[in-house]
């Protein structure tokens, strides 16, 4: 891999593992377009001296300034809701927006893999190592942690160390970035069947 491709792959991997926030941006843009179009239409209609569609621009202006005279409860509630939405938007715009994906070290290409696939593969190996039905194995993979939950079959004990070893070996083999640590939990009550 040339150094030129390395920078390219780093950029692609970063973009593929983080959300572009496109949906939210498009929704906001559409809302803004609708509001702007409406206000513009109202102003033009007012300039032409025709009756307003919904609210005349002068009324908009006056009621916006006279917000202190309106019923306090309604204005306060609306203001607080708007402020909270605003705060959420600011947090969303600044937070990294990680997707549930990991980068795998590969030689030829940049590779990203969904956490779901990692969990699925770990579940297969864990159920094999623990001698447990695959459908009684639950794995959830997050950014830095994989939690393996096993419910053994009645009468067949599952060895926690074997499962942990198998899962860790698998995780090491994948070479995930960032690295994922496994935690194995074996249910105390076994059950029969799936």
């Amino acid at each position, binding site marked *: 891999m040339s150094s030129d491709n390395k920078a390219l792959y780093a950029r692609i991997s970063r973009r593929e593992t983080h959300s572009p926030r496109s949906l939210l941006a498009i929704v906001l*843009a559409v809302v803004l377009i609708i509001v702007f179009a409406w206000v513009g239409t109202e102003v033009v209609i007012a300039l032409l001296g025709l009756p307003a569609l919904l609210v005349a621009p002068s009324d908009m202006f006056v009621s916006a300034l006279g917000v202190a005279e309106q019923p306090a409860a309604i204005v306060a509630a609306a203001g607080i809701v708007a402020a909270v939405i605003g705060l959420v938007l600011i947090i969303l*715009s600044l937070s990294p927006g990680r997707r549930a994906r990991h980068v795998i070290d590969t030689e*030829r*290409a940049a590779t990203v893999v969904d956490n*779901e696939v990692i969990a699925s593969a770990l579940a297969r190996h864990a159920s094999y190592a623990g001698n447990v039905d695959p459908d009684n194995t639950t794995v959830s993979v997050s950014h830095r942690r994989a939690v393996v939950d096993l419910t053994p079959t009645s009468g067949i004990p599952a060895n926690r160390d074997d499962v942990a070893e198998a899962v860790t070996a698998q995780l090491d083999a994948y070479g995930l970035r960032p690295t994922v640590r496994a935690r194995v939990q074996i249910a105390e009550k076994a059950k029969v069947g799936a």
Partner: protein
Amino acid sequence: MNSTNRAANRLLIFVCGLLLLVVGAAAAAAVLVPLVRDAWKDTSGQVTDQVASWLEQTQLAGIGVSWILIAVVALLVIAIIVLIVFISRQGRGHTGIALTDPTSEHGSTVIESSVAEHALKDALDAHSEFVGSHVSTYKVRRTPVLKVSVTCRRGVSPKDAAAIVESKLHALDELLGRELPALIQISGGFRARVTKTTRLQLPLRKKKNMPKPLVWLVVIAVGTTAYVVGAKAGHGRYKEISETAKAFWNDPAVKKARARAQKKTQKAAKKAVKKISK
């Protein structure tokens, strides 16, 4: 992979959030905090007078309309155009050309990306590890990059999946005589945990392509206009329209045309029946 300007997305969200936060907090403070409330009342009168005097001073001679309002409309139109461009720029970056050889004395060579895409897809579909695959080409920093998305069956190791795709990529490199940068995206179709024993593996539903944002925009615009017009016009207008439609339907000339059309279709149907029964 696409060329969406993510900084612009985040900037728009941030500005909208800041605006909402400031306006909402100001409105809440204006009614809840007595100090702010008094100050608000004092200034609001001044602001009204100031704006009124501005509008007076800026009246255009001929029409008696302030140019400030016209400027406001112009600004709104510009803002709308900018936002439409912003929306239409999302998710771009596809390219149809994978390789361009510089012109030599014998001419130049252009390899379309569909060559690489079809070759890879054919090779990948033969593998039972994958439920499906999709190959597309994007331009990243002016370099065409292949994006190979594969959907794995349950329990397939991501390392194995990556190795399979990489082997296909190496084969493609030999075919093209050049190494195309590539992204492998491995996703899964099956939940790691299934509540009942799985006997049958259902194929994954394919993700439908989202309609382009512009389509949504048009739909929303038309819907809004229709709603506003409808709300303004009210029931009286609806009756008028339906009366006009009824009058047109029952118009003698239209009736005649309808009868003629009916006859013609009946004749054609008879002919068709004859031909078929022969």
